[in-house]
């Protein structure tokens, strides 16, 4: 994709790998100024990106990250809330902490980041917030009650934000990836990955770039009239739900 007419300041949380990193790179290729946050490990390959260490479960660290980005790149205009963790297990064996930690990192963190981001967006009367959810939020998944709950929660959060800030020209949307070839999936046994690919009508796993493309579209001028939607990027896996 070529350069865009209006370069924006973009923040991608959890941008050090997988879908987040692919998204950050695609924004950068389009000529935007891009910052990424990472919790523990700075990406080796992040040329042209501003990498900021930030644990999104800590409001103070989010504040500090925004201050740094503001200073180095300008006020954040596009936020991709992508940081997330899994702690899979069957419900009967799932501890309270396994549930609440995943909710905190995947859902509450999205709320914290959005709350911080809208302050600047309101002043600029322009903003784009995109949450990276998952089709398991709608479909459910044995062994992922915590993760699925957190990803479903993002939909209610996003749609409420969409209504609350619509008058300030801020759109809020959700991308719901299906099985994508990332580290998160590499952690699964090969058989499980193959079974997943077979459950996809398009017959394969998606690539992080294919999710990034939809995220970049939602941030673009072309998507100005789109808000509060969930776009599955799943090869047809969750069609109709």
């Amino acid at each position, binding site marked *: 994709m070529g350069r865009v007419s209006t370069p924006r300041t973009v923040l991608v949380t959890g941008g050090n790998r997988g879908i987040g990193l692919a998204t950050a790179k695609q924004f950068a290729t389009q000529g935007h100024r891009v910052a990424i946050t990472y919790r523990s490990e700075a990406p080796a390959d992040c040329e042209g990106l501003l990498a900021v260490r930030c644990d999104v479960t800590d409001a103070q660290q989010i504040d500090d990250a925004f201050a740094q980005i503001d200073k180095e790149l300008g006020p954040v205009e596009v936020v991709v809330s992508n940081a997330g963790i899994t702690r899979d297990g069957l419900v009967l064996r799932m501890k309270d902490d396994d549930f609440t930690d995943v909710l905190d990192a995947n859902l509450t963190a999205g709320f914290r980041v959005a709350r911080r981001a809208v*302050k600047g967006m*309101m002043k600029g009367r322009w903003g784009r917030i995109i949450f990276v959810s998952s089709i398991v939020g709608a479909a459910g998944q044995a062994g992922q009650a915590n993760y699925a709950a957190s990803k479903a929660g993002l939909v209610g959060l996003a749609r409420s934000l969409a209504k*609350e*800030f619509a*008058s*300030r020209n801020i759109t809020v949307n959700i991308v719901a990836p299906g099985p994508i070839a990332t580290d998160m999936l590499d952690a699964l046994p090969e058989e499980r990955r193959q079974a997943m690919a077979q459950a996809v009508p398009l017959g394969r796993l998606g690539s992080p770039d294919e999710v990034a493309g939809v995220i970049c579209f939602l941030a673009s001028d072309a998507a100005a009239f789109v808000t509060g939607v969930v776009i599955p990027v799943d090869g047809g896996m969750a069609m109709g739900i």
Partner: protein
Amino acid sequence: MSDQDLFERFKRRAVEVLSVEDAQVKLEAKFADDLDADSLDLVEFVMALEEEFDINVEEQELEGVDTIGAAFELVKSKI
């Protein structure tokens, strides 16, 4: 600090956050009718005042605060 100085600071933030003219920021001005401010504007304004005067305003204290004068009284009571 005199009331007048306080009001000048208060007014400066009102002009900036609510995008209104100096002359519109009168004690009797109503946020909704005279200043065209919606609920989001008010939240932004309160946050700006909290920052300006280093005060903390609770949600329930804002009940019935619908004019510049009422907001200014609330701020004064906190300083």
